[in-house]
């Protein structure tokens, strides 16, 4: 575990040293703040003391930002050969993948933590459903975990960061939009399968304040599959 932590610390340091972290934080807070408070379907327009509008903005901004964070993580190591250095140290493939996953998740949690002033502001405006807010944050964290593991997988199959970014977005858009569209246009068993696969089904359930073990299983299974896929592509060096 301590070695996973070593990886986490280095990755976080690299996020902050390369300014990626600052740009991501500023952009995330800027976008979500703008759309939550100033423009369009904002909180004042809805007229309820609720963070729903923030959650639905963050649902999209995180979807777009996460691949930009994960694209570098394995693709660059692959390209510069530092992966060879890492893999010849007494650390397992799984610890490397999990460390990288955790570091990005921590950065996302920091970003979400910085939006707590929104929560306190809305709270001061009127009665707020605390349970729904907390679950909304939990939902964002679960969704981010899923996209981080997809992004890591995309980053592990290539040594080109742009390819990794686009691949993560393409895989992600299926979960984000396409499965939902298919679910609404199909009926019967196929429809309900796609409905279960759609990220928005599970995210909106959680952010409304309803949590179900099926939603948790959904997010965790995407995370596990993404991480195992990344680990498998690290181990691929031994396949012929």
């Amino acid at each position, binding site marked *: 575990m301590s*070695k996973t932590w070593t990886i986490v610390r280095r990755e976080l340091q690299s996020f902050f040293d390369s300014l990626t972290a600052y740009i991501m934080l500023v952009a995330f807070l800027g976008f979500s703040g703008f759309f939550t408070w100033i423009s369009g379907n904002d909180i004042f327009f809805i007229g309820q003391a609720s963070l729903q509008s923030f959650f639905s903005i963050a649902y999209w901004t995180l979807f777009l930002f996460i691949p930009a964070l994960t694209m570098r993580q394995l693709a660059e190591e692959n390209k*510069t050969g*530092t992966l*060879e*250095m890492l893999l*010849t*140290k007494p650390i*397992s493939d799984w610890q490397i993948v999990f460390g990288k996953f955790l570091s990005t998740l921590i950065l996302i949690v920091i970003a979400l933590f910085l939006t707590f002033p929104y929560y306190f502001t809305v709270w001061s405006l009127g009665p707020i459903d605390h349970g729904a807010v907390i679950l909304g944050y939990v939902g964002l964290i679960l969704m981010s975990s899923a996209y981080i593991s997809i992004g890591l997988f995309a980053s592990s199959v290539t040594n080109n960061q742009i390819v990794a970014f686009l691949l993560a977005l393409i895989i992600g858009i299926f979960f984000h939009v396409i499965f939902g569209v298919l679910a609404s246009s199909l009926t019967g068993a196929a429809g309900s399968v796609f409905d279960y696969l759609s990220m928005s089904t599970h995210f909106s359930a959680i952010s409304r304040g309803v949590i179900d073990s099926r939603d948790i299983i959904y997010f965790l299974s995407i995370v596990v599959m993404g991480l195992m896929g990344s680990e498998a592509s690290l181990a691929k060096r*031994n396949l012929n």
Partner: protein
Amino acid sequence: MDIIVEKVTKLYGAQKAVDNISFKVNTGEVLGFLGPNGAGKTTTMKAITCFLAPNEGDITVGGLSVRENPEKVKSLIGYLPESNPLYQEMQVVDYLAFVAELQGVPKEQIPGRIREMIKICGLSGEKSKNIRELSKGYKQRVGLAQALIHDPEVLVLDEPTTGLDPNQIAEIRDLIRKIGKEKTVILSSHILAEVEATCDRILIISNGRIVANGTPAELRMRAHGDEILKVKIGGGEPEDIFIALEDLETVRSIAIMDNSPEYFEVHSHENENSARPIFEMCAENNWYIEELTPVETRLEDIFREVTMN
């Protein structure tokens, strides 16, 4: 700590990068790995360091198999890969601390180990620079420092002196020799002089197979058992000297050196020695020997001989 490589084969697709090779390296031995490009040196090293798993055969380091105990084996090895990959955006000390933690060096010992590595590898002026800003030679030193940080029992160095200037090369060689007294070292190179200067034993590998294995002296003996002498004789006409040399019983052939016609290269028959007959010949004819040097077969010739077919 011994390294035993047993019947290892590694395939890349259908191509055999390493073909059924076996060898052993003993504790306190510096083994030089020689071979043309693409011979399988790097692949063998990657197999020893558990980066690649062999398709067949097994490697044990200190009795531990790379198949069963990769993590344990990795912690015994310090490895400098050929491309010397480094995190460019990290500072030298941060990078060394990161590697030390990965290698499981106890926390309280890490600052001491880093100080020692910086001293040994001559990095004191560069320690708080970003690795990106270092010259190639200094990067190579950082690579070496990270390989040595946990005081490994086994050191695997893939072309450790590329990109270094002659002074640095000499320093690194000294360092390798010093480490090689107690530890097991494997280094690869295609600079023959380097292998000769640092290694106790040489392994020449070509097309994935071992084609020669022995100390530099043994290899020389094996390649050319015959004595070759470079002779310069004064006091007579070169033609007469040439004819007289040819008449000696122990001499197989004589060559006149292209760039200096007064020198003769005398090749003796197998297991014969020509120095005494040459002396007696000179005494008889009233000539005198100006110079007589045994010519050692160069490692280059051996290398070419065993890797060309």
